[in-house]
């Protein structure tokens, strides 16, 4: 009995160590993939950053590609969690979608796994059509939100929800690609402008004002979140800097 408990505990500790190793590899690889293209990143860079040996890595990931796919998996898991969380709020279809878009945008600039995952999704070499599958499942999900938005009366009922979904997913991916994620505020600004511009193409005319406001509010909160420091701290820093330069 005692022996079993001890060996169990030892197994637990082993698992925890394995978890930490995996976590370190993912974190180091995400940092590399978030800022450089897939082909430019070498395994040696990742291993050096993670302070691990090749052997430790091969225990978890047989190749650079396997690491990349694991990061994409982690991103998908994050997105699923965000979606589940949002759906429990039981807002309307279009509100849920806009919330999700800004949530993902913040995540893309603040979280390296998310940023690397999004970038890898577009560039990683793979034979499995992974990115097609991922985008297809996004289009399907956005389609259900647009269908809901039609019954909510927010989206006009004479367009095909799937067409709207495809356009919005393209807008979302495209905006990320043309934006520099190291300048999160400009990225969010691009996102806000693109959305406000496209609203009239599928939104009921009497709902456009409301959703324009809705987008502007999400944009303002997202900007607050990505700016390096909260505004009040910034003011404080400015005052301190002013005091310093102007004795």
């Amino acid at each position, binding site marked *: 009995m005692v022996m079993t408990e001890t060996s169990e505990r030892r197994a637990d500790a082993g698992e925890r160590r394995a978890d930490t190793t995996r976590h370190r590899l993912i974190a180091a690889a995400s940092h590399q993939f978030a800022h450089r293209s897939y082909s430019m990143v070498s395994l040696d860079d990742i291993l050096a950053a993670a302070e691990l040996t090749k052997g430790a890595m091969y225990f978890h990931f047989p190749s650079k590609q396997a690491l990349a796919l694991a990061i994409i998996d982690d991103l998908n898991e994050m997105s699923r969690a965000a979606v589940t*969380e*949002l759906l*429990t*709020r*039981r*807002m*309307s279809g279009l509100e849920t979608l806009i*919330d999700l878009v*800004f*949530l993902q945008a*913040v995540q893309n600039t603040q979280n390296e796994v998310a940023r690397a995952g999004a970038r890898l999704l577009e560039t990683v070499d793979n034979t499995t059509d992974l990115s097609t599958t991922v985008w297809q499942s996004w289009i399907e999900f956005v389609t259900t939100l647009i269908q809901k938005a039609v019954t*909510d009366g927010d989206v006009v009922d004479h367009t095909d929800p799937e067409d709207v979904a495809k356009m919005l997913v393209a807008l979302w991916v495209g905006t990320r690609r043309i934006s520099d994620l190291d300048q999160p505020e400009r990225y969010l600004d691009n996102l806000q402008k693109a959305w406000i511009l496209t609203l009239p193409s599928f939104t009921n005319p009497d709902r456009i*004002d*409301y959703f324009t*406001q*809705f987008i502007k*509010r*999400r944009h*303002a*909160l*997202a900007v607050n*979140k990505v700016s390096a420091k909260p505004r*009040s701290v910034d003011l404080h820093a400015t005052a301190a800097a002013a005091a310093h330069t102007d004795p």
Partner: protein
Amino acid sequence: MAPQARSEATRQKILNAAIDLFSEVGYAAAGLGEIIERAGMTKGALYHHFDSKEALATAIIEQGTNLTRDAFHRVCQSSSPALENMIHGVFVVTDLVDTDKTARTAEQLTRGLLEFNSAASQVWSSRLDTMTTQARRASTEGDLREGLDPDVVSESILNTMLGAQLLSKTADGNDHITRLTRSLELLLPAIVAETSLAYFREFLAREYLRHPQAGGSTD
């Protein structure tokens, strides 16, 4: 079943019987004897878990208000503007009270025992805390009128929520959402900044329309 799980199941069975009886005849008229009978338990089993009718009420209040508290917290954790969370949160709690028997009975008991039971008096002070945190954020987000005290704003919203609960007791809660919406409509101009008012009027109207009860009365 493990003894602990069995004991927990017994406890829940007694609670369910008490919830049924309290909601049918009210706390004062409910007798322990009838609760025992409904639960199909012995007096000993009941007294093993609850030493009095008030202990039963306290357990129901805790269980039911945990539901509403968690639902409200979930809303407040979102990254939406805080004033949206405050309005949406009130509707989510109201919904839960209308649809969940435990949550509803807990509200009834809370109202009835407010002055006598510490679990009951805790409920509203903790709701006020949660609401005030949001109100402070709403104030920094520029959605509240300038110079308003976040505590007073929170109190007014909770008063509205409690008032709608009390007055809608009649038509089996059907007009609950309508009463709540009407009062909040009146309250909005007093608390919302001029530039945000139109948006929040629409936000409230949408919140109202989303509720099934509202569908019939507006079409």
